[in-house]
């Protein structure tokens, strides 16, 4: 049986009806068509579905939608350089420049994890970035290009603030 739920995603309020056992990942993708968030392992071990809830990167495949009513949810669709338009974020720009994404399936999860990291720690060192990305799996790049991209973006973001 479906119940009404109110979710705040990327600053917008959404009201819809979903069953009690609905996972946030399913609500994002199937009900709200925010398909930038990917379903990988579905068991919390790959990080493809990572989003940010109240400033923390979490696996949306292990979050019940009804548990996060009233919380601040951010998905890859809400990651832009400026709140006024949909210009791409320095992280996404650096990802493209460094080849941080090859098949691209894991990229949104990585970017969300790093986005949360840089909010708390704008200039992490390479070991700190690697540690923060301990819950994200990429089968293409070998991670070097991803770490390069994060360093490049963090440097640029620090220079402009």
């Amino acid at each position: 049986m479906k119940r009404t739920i109110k979710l705040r995603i990327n600053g917008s309020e959404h009201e819809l009806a979903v069953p009690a056992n609905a996972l946030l990942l399913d609500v994002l993708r199937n009900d709200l068509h925010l398909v930038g968030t990917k379903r990988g392992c579905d068991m919390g071990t790959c990080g493809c579905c990572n989003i940010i809830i109240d400033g923390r990167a979490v696996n949306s495949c292990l979050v019940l939608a009804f548990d996060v009513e009233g919380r601040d949810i951010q998905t890859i669709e809400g990651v832009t350089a400026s709140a006024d338009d949909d210009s791409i974020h320095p992280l996404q720009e650096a990802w493209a420049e460094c080849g941080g994404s090859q098949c691209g399936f894991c990229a949104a999860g990585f970017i969300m994890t790093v986005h949360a990291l840089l909010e708390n720690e704008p200039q992490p060192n390479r070991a700190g970035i690697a540690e923060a990305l301990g819950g994200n799996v990429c089968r293409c790049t070998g991670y070097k290009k991803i770490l390069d991209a994060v360093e490049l973006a963090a440097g640029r973001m620090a220079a402009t603030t």
Partner: protein
Amino acid sequence: MILPTFELHHPTTITELVEIARDLTAQGEAFDYMAGGTDVLPNYKNRLNPRPHVISLARLAGLDEIGVDRIGARALVDDLARSSVLSEHYPGLVEAARSVSSPPLRNLGTIGGNLLLDTRCWYFNQSEFWRESKGYCMKADGDVCLVVPQKEICYATYSGDLAPVLLVLDARVTLVGPDGERTVPLREFYAFDGITRFLKGPAELLTAVDIPSSSRELRTGYRKLRMRDTIEYPVAGVALALHTDGDKVGRLEVAVTGTEAIPLWYGDLDLTGQPATPATAEALQEALVDRVTCYRNVPFPPGYRKAMTGEYARELFSALVG
């Protein structure tokens, strides 16, 4: 993966939660408490003992404080890992918290959930399809253990990281349920096999972890073995707490995880009065390996895991002597 159907309850106070638990118990309805969901939901997805009701702790107020004496059961593992007060007094607990699973899962998982972590086994943590093909085990849907074939004891392995450190610190847990509140030493909390796991009634909620002030004299450390440095569960882990009296061992506490169905505190392993030297570290290594038993139901061979508990104990002893 679609979760099985269940009714979801969202109490906002402990009183409300206890009422829901009491009503469901009276109706004969099974339920699980769920905090972070990082253990419950993967099991539910695999159809491992799902219940018709889930009582979520997501909207419960409080129970998330982190202090030197008391930690609320809903405190996030990531917050433990970053706690300056814990880092000052119990660095071993912070080390263990920092090593739990992966960063995003530490942002969801709680200390209470980590202590109550379900046991793991090759024959249990599998999809419904896999388990049906192999034949069900006694922990879910079957009646025989597939690790050590018999029907009495479940040999699934406990793999929480925080329990061994809290065991050496002699922590106590507070449980609240329809019959009131009680406090139990963690050393008496874990019991029996991979199905029973601990002496907690199904309607009891773990609300807090208390660490006695007498444990502040101890230096603590934690080491563990796992397939990768992140995400994976420990398949052997050792926590040590040491207080030296001059150049002798004043007090030494040892506990392990990732070996048997429950985390184990070795109270009989007494090296009080022994010199704090590498020779004693080796004696500790030998004594621990003698006591540890591992089963072939998680990654790495039992003999290797057993040997590694000894190695870690020796390393930790030397590191804590400093």
